[in-house]
């Protein structure tokens, strides 16, 4: 930049910076595109060669019904007949509820367990046992245990995503360096001040790690949760009913939506983590 400062005009400056951007990020853009295209091409040929019964990626376009879904995500014909945007939106609302509950309970309980070794001893085996249970396995239990399917679905999301938050918060609180505790003791800092000025900031990187793992799990649990509810607007139930009706390319399209939304959620949490935590105190 400095070298050609004399001859620089705004035009060359722009193309110059574009070139340097490309030099820095070109590989990061080109290689993933090659990877994805390669995958799609192999899939396409595998389907055309009858190696799999799965329709090829082009079926998203060639299949009439799927093409309509692809082109009109915002359509709304009432009832269950809604575009994929609305289906996803309903699912997101459910995930938000379950995830918020998981965050509140996970962080709260994590702090309790992390600060009280006796509570930790009492509850740890139970937690370790419960967290091994897959989302689908909760479905029959919640259906029996809870009064209605709405709460049952939210509960499945909650119970799937609460564990990483709980466990990471616990570890984060347990890992508060002795030095910080000693400072608090010698200054005789009040419990409230200790909580907000030392405990929370010190455990925050761990809490965020838990929250970020949990958002992925909460979204993964949506299928199980909506199968529980059955007969509602939502991307999970959409997949389920498409499968029941053997609309395979619709299933594929919905899967693409689910993947994309999951990715966006994860990126969003990463962004929050980056915004809230100073770069050097992240774990």
């Amino acid at each position, binding site marked *: 930049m400095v070298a050609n400062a004399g001859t620089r005009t705004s035009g060359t400056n722009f193309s110059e910076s574009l070139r340097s951007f490309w030099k820095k990020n070109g590989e990061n853009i080109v290689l993933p595109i090659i990877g994805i295209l390669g995958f799609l091409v192999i899939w396409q040929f595998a389907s055309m060669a009858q190696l799999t019964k799965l329709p090829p990626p082009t079926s998203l376009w060639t299949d009439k019904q799927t093409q309509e879904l692809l082109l009109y995500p915002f359509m709304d014909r009432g009832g269950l007949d809604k575009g994929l945007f609305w289906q996803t939106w309903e699912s997101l609302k459910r995930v938000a509820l379950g995830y918020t509950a998981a965050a509140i309970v996970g962080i709260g309980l994590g702090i309790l367990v992390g600060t009280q070794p006796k509570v930790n001893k009492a509850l740890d085996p139970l937690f370790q046992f419960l967290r091994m249970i897959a989302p689908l396995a909760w479905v029959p239990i919640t259906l029996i245990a809870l009064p209605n399917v709405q709460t049952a679905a939210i509960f499945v999301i909650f119970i799937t995503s609460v564990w990483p938050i709980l466990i990471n918060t616990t570890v984060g609180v347990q890992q508060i*360096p002795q030095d*910080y505790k*000693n400072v608090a003791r*010698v*200054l005789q800092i009040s419990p409230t001040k200790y909580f907000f000025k030392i405990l929370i*900031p010190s455990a925050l990187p761990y809490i965020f790690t838990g929250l970020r793992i949990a958002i992925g799990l909460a979204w993964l649990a949506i299928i199980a949760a909506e199968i529980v509810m059955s007969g509602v607007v939502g991307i999970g139930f959409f997949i389920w009913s498409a499968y029941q009706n053997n609309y395979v390319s619709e299933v594929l399209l919905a899967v693409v939506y689910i993947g994309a939304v999951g990715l966006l959620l994860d990126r969003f949490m990463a962004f929050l983590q980056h915004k809230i935590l*100073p770069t*050097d*105190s992240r774990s």
Partner: protein
Amino acid sequence: MDPYLNHSGKMENMASLNSANSALHFETEPNYGNRISTNGTLGMTQTVQPDIQKTRKISEPGPTSVDPNGFLVVDNVTKVYPTAKGPFVVLDGINLTINEGEFICLIGHSGCGKTTLLNMVSGFNTPSTGQVRLQGQPITKPGPDRMVVFQNYALLPWMTVTDNVYLAVDSVYPDKPEVEKREIVREHLAMVGLTEAADKKITQISGGMKQRVSIARALSIRPKLLILDEPFGALDAITKEELQEELLKIWSDHRCTVLMITHDIDEALFLADRLVMMTNGPSAKIGEVMTIHFPRPRDRARIMEDPEYYDLRNYALDFLYNRFAHDDDE
């Protein structure tokens, strides 16, 4: 850059003095009153300089009793840790009386129990038998009247320099008005030369600056006793000397009592009124207590020109490396 040049100049000076015969410098140096001089590098045999009337002992054996009215009294303290292989006696019958306003350094081999002793003064640990008393009050738990400068600074990295000090001031003086608390913080940061860095995050400042913040935080709450556990161990030689000088100046302005662990004999001789030398553990005791008479305010270059400096230094070295050499020496 200038102060650095100055310092390196001083260090050269020290090096040349070190190897030279101290008698050569004798005429140029100021008369500090009574002075003893020793023959031989070990300082074991003392001869009196012809023009000095009074002899003074370099060092005295560890006290066997305490002055009950002393400012800080370590009264016959023993610390035993129960271990798998039976009780492990770290400290055995420590007696020490520290007067108000004194600067005491504590030296001894690694693992002899210096931190253990300090922790019983700060209240993080309690003696197995015996008692530590500050102004007659037995010490049972940590408190801001005995503020600690921790070895690895113990600053909160998510806060700014100012907020770290403010947290201490605010915790100890919750009822003072906000402006006054802010003013205390500002004043103490200025004192350690950190006005410029006041709004920086702890992660953005150097080790020497961190130790300055830690000292500012400790002094901002006006402790009766300032406790430092090897505060300058991790710093480079130049920063270390700067901080020693600052600490000395602050101490003489504040007139608090200081108890400090060090591994550096030169540091102790520059700073302390008395140097407490501990024997090796297990069952460590106070071997000897050396009184350091250099007049204050102290000037490093002038102290180093004093032949007594080398007598004291050699005496302490002899204590540590001959009489109480570490078994598993590095």
